[in-house]
């Protein structure tokens, strides 16, 4: 039955994974950016953001996307909760915190919107979680 539904509702197989993996590997091939460098950039980016909010380090995704002739680095960083890790060691659950990020919705929605917004943003303009590189 599951198989039947899978066939009915269209591509859900490994081709999507293949395409995403290819996209990333070709981008790094073209840029000659080593996977180590990407990891380092990811780490630094997360360190900076972690000063202000708690993020889910295991679920961070970094992608590169071609926009016209420029290249955009898109970071998708799920925020677990908003708090100041230095000043307030106990992290407050996101629902109870009043902050601009929370005001925009729950954490997963912020993540989704941010990703989409970053895609639309021109590489030169600064988006919170996207950095332009060329």
């Amino acid at each position, binding site marked *: 039955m599951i*198989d039947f539904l899978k066939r*009915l509702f*269209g591509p859900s197989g490994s081709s999507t994974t*293949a*395409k995403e993996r290819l996209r990333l*590997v070709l981008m790094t*091939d073209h840029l000659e950016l080593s996977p180590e460098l990407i990891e380092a950039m990811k780490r630094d980016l997360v360190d900076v953001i972690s000063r202000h909010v708690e993020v889910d380090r295991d679920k961070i995704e970094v992608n590169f996307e071609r926009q016209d002739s420029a290249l955009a680095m898109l970071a998708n960083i799920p925020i677990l909760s908003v708090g100041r890790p230095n000043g307030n060691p106990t992290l407050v659950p996101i629902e109870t915190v009043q902050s601009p990020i929370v005001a925009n919705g729950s954490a997963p929605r912020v993540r989704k919107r941010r990703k989409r917004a970053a895609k639309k943003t021109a590489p030169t303009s600064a988006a919170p979680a996207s950095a332009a590189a060329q």
Partner: protein
Amino acid sequence: MTARKIVLTSGKGGVGKTTTTANLGATLAKRGKRVILIDADIGLRNLDLVLGLEKRIVFDLVEVAEGRCQLRQALIKDKRFESLSILPAAQTREKDAISLQQFSAIVELAAEQADYVLIDCPAGIETGFRNAVGGASEAIVVTTPEVSAIRDADRVVGKIADEGKPIRLIVNRLRPEMVRTGDMLSVEDVCEVLAVELLGVVPDDEEVIDTTNRGEPIVLNDSSRLGAIYDKIARRLEGEIVPFTNFDGQGFFGRLIDALKAG
């Protein structure tokens, strides 16, 4: 009027360069074009075998380059297609047995007596690849819908583009039923990732193994499934606008029919 000099290349081995060269060459010859196929894979000669001409080799590419014989002495005429001949590679020599200048000179000479010179490029991106691409004025990149083949195709596309030569793509061994279930990259996906103009799509077919076993080009058989596919590719190569067969997604109802059939 000199021939079009086209290299068929892929980066990765085993994606079907030689089979494509043989069948595209035979198709063009069947369409009345004068075709010379050059096997540039020195040391790993196979084009002769795929075409069933292995017993007729007298001289090879390296011997022509070294001036041991004339090009016309080394060319093997295919008796099934009057206007098709091949220049076999040397089997017991290394890739660097021939320089780019020597190779280009042979391609030029062949081009004077043909409409198409198709060069079967060796796998890899070293000397053999550089010679084969250097001797051509345009390229056909052959790939399969697999991540490793596509990544390698992307490498050769970059290298050929650096030389400013036009490139077109053949997606080989597509399995439409796997594309429909989302288990194989679609032609659209491959084209999007590689950003190269599509020349043709060849579905995976047992016919290829069978005809290769016999050393017969697919187009020899008029009722062949793939013969019609290669014919379309040949026509596109000649500048005709030929619509592509849609092997990709087919919408909800198509999938419903498929799911019912499979279920």
